[in-house]
Each structure stands twice: as C-alpha cells, then as structure tokens.
C-alpha cells in the first residue's frame, strides 16, 4: 500500500551531487536502522528513474530496464545494513549492485550457442606450423603418448585415421584411395575415435 510513501512528482530542487551523497547516506542508515519507508522512498525517487535510463541506454528494452530497477532497489531495501559509507558513496554502492545484477541478467539471457562439446566435430583444415623438430623434451613426452595411443590402434583403423586427421583428407577421398566403401571408412573412423577417446581420457 502506498499510504505514507510520497512519490516525488515534480522535478523541483534536484539535489547537488555532494550534499546528495550525504543525504542519501543518511537515508540508507535510516532504512537500515528503522526500516523507514519514507527514507527509502527518497532513495527510490532519486535512483529509480536514473537506473531505468541507464539500463534503457544499454539494452533499449523497457521491460529489462524495469526489471533491473526492481531488482536493484529490492536489494537496496533488503541489504541497506550492508552499506558502508567509509567504503564509497551511496551512488557507487547502488551502481555496483545494479551493474552486478546486469551481469547476472546477461548470463541468463545468453542463448546457448551451438553445442560446443559436440562429439561430431569434424577436422578443421590443417594448418601448417613449424614441424616437430624443435619440440622440447616435455612436449615430446606428450607427443609420444599421443603416438603410443595411435600405434595401439588396429592397422586398418590407423590408416584411415592418419589420412583423415593428420593428412586432412575427406572420408570420400580415403574410400576412393583405399578402394573400400564409404560406410567402411566411417565405421573404422568411429571405432578408432571411440578407442582414442578412452585412451585420452583414462579416468582414475
């Protein structure tokens, strides 16, 4: 109910920033100590329209802007006791609350991009980088592990995997080259990848 909470309806006497900070600090203390609705209304009347215009500028979306105002001002009401004037001005405190809520909002909004952990990732065209002549000892250890994994595959799978993933050929090309059906290339690839995946990821 609105009883006793005046909603500022004119733009007379807009306070100057400096005295405003002191005044708002005082209001926040009163809200924290006495749950004073009148003091909160003063804070609300000053900050709510400005928060709305900040969010409108960023998003151009009225509903989001109102949601941000609601969430921010609810936090201010509920957590006024956490405001510490020694650590910064009321503006900075309220702005930081709004900013963090805005990040949370963005986090929820962000649409799931294409599933980046898809198992069907196809090899990207290989880049040519300086070759493995100059690798350090530790790097050789990892490469050796990869090599051992690779060597452990059945010969027929190894040929297919090498052609596709190291030489960058298409499955169709491999089928033609080895004179085997495309389906066979696919199943050998699938089996080899399954095996390699287990080897890479030895859960223990």
């Amino acid at each position: 109910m609105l009883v006793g909470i005046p909603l500022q309806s004119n733009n007379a006497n807009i306070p100057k920033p400096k005295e405003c900070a002191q005044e708002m600090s005082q209001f926040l203390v009163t809200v924290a100590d006495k749950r004073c609705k009148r003091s909160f209304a003063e804070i609300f009347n000053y900050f709510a329209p400005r928060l709305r215009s900040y969010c409108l500028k960023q998003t151009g979306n009225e509903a989001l802007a109102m949601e941000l105002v609601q969430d921010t001002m609810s936090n201010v009401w509920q957590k006024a006791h956490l405001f510490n004037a020694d650590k910064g001005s009321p503006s900075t405190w309220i702005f930081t609350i709004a900013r963090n809520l805005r990040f949370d909002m963005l986090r929820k909004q962000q649409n799931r991009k294409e599933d980046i952990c898809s198992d069907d990732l196809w090899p990207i065209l290989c880049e040519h980088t300086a070759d493995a002549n100059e690798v350090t000892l530790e790097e050789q250890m990892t490469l050796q592990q990869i090599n051992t994994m690779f060597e452990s595959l059945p010969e027929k799978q190894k040929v297919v995997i090498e052609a596709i993933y190291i030489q960058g050929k298409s499955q169709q090309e491999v089928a033609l080259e080895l004179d085997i059906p495309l389906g066979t290339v696919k199943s050998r690839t699938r089996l080899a990848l399954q095996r390699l995946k287990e080897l890479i990821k030895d859960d223990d």
Partner: protein
Amino acid sequence: MINYHPTEEQLSEFAQGLSSPALALVISAHIDMCGKCQKHVARLESDSAKAVFEDQINIAANQPKEFASMLADITCLPVSESPSATPKESMIELDGRKFAVPRALKRYVDKTGNWSHLLGNLWQAPVDLGPIGKAHFIFMQKNGRVPEHTHRGTELTLVIDGEFSDGISHYDTGDFILMNSDNTHAPHSEASEGCLVFSIVDAPLHFTSGIARLLNPFSHLFF
C-alpha cells in the same frame, strides 16, 4: 607476483557493466586476487556511478506509472539477514590437496564436477556456468603439458595456484590471460607443486603441431 592484468579498456567496460558474462566473471575473480586492479576498478565504478546518477534527468517526464506500485511492493519485502549468500564450500579439492578459490568463483564450487585425468599429466574438472561458455578447473602436474594449440574462439584463463609457461610468457598466481585465434601456445608447468588454473573457452581448441592434430576430434575434451 601478478604481471598480467586485464587491459585498461577491459577493466573500464567491466566497471560500466559492458563486458560479456564470461569476461566479467574472470575479471571479477582476477580483481579478487589483485589489489591493484581492485583499487583501479573501484575508481572506475565510482566514475561510472557519477555518470549514471548525476545525470540531471527530468524525473517528472520520465517516471513510469509502475514506479509507485514497485516502491510499495519493495517496502513489503523482508530484510535479508545473511550478509550475502555465502556458499558453504569454498575450496576445491584434488587428490587430497585443497585450493581456495577467489570470491567470484565460490558460487561455482558446488557446480564443479569430478576430476578426470587426461594425457599429458593434466587433470580437469568441468564447471557448469550455464550457457556462457565451457569452463574448467585445470591442474597441470609437474611437467604437465597441453599440446600446442590455437583457439577458434576466446580462451580466458586465471591462474588460481602455482605457475606455468606457454612458450609466450611465464604466468604466476593471479595472472589473467586472454587468448584467441591470433595466439598459438603450449601451456606446461614445471613447478613441483603443479599449477591450477580456471579457464573458459567459447569454442574448441585447435591443435597445431604434427601428431597432436590427432587430438582435434577430441578438442572438446581439452577444456
């Protein structure tokens, strides 16, 4: 000693609330570990607050009617007693070793899955951040090494504990690293205690050297 910080522009966008959610999270965690950036961002936040709130807008003209009921609704809400929702668990554990995580990452400790062992003396645990990117805690044991790779998207890394090198630089606890398709590197740790990092990628890695290309179909397993 922290040597790698977000750029001035990244910090400024963070302060204003303009960073992408993934970047905001990693910058926020870096700030928890870096007093210098903490002070700097506090100044930037205060500047942004001034810019936003000292705007002499015409309140009467701009005020939507819903503000009255919103104000009334808010003042009916109870006080929130807890200082803030502090999660119970703020350490992550690997093989009996416990690591403290920066404040910004605490809310994700109980969204961290089990550790799994990858080749190259690497351990990783997935962190469910929702849709903003694939996140992991990654532990490189001594001599642990990620094969040389480039990035198809952006890779954000924060060193949580320990040190590592990647052929480009050497990084220490608290360092903030942003890599993209312009960078090719091979992270490895020679520290006897190993190195724990937090990393977010928005697209799979692309392995570049010789036989390591064989890993490309599995790049999603590597962070």
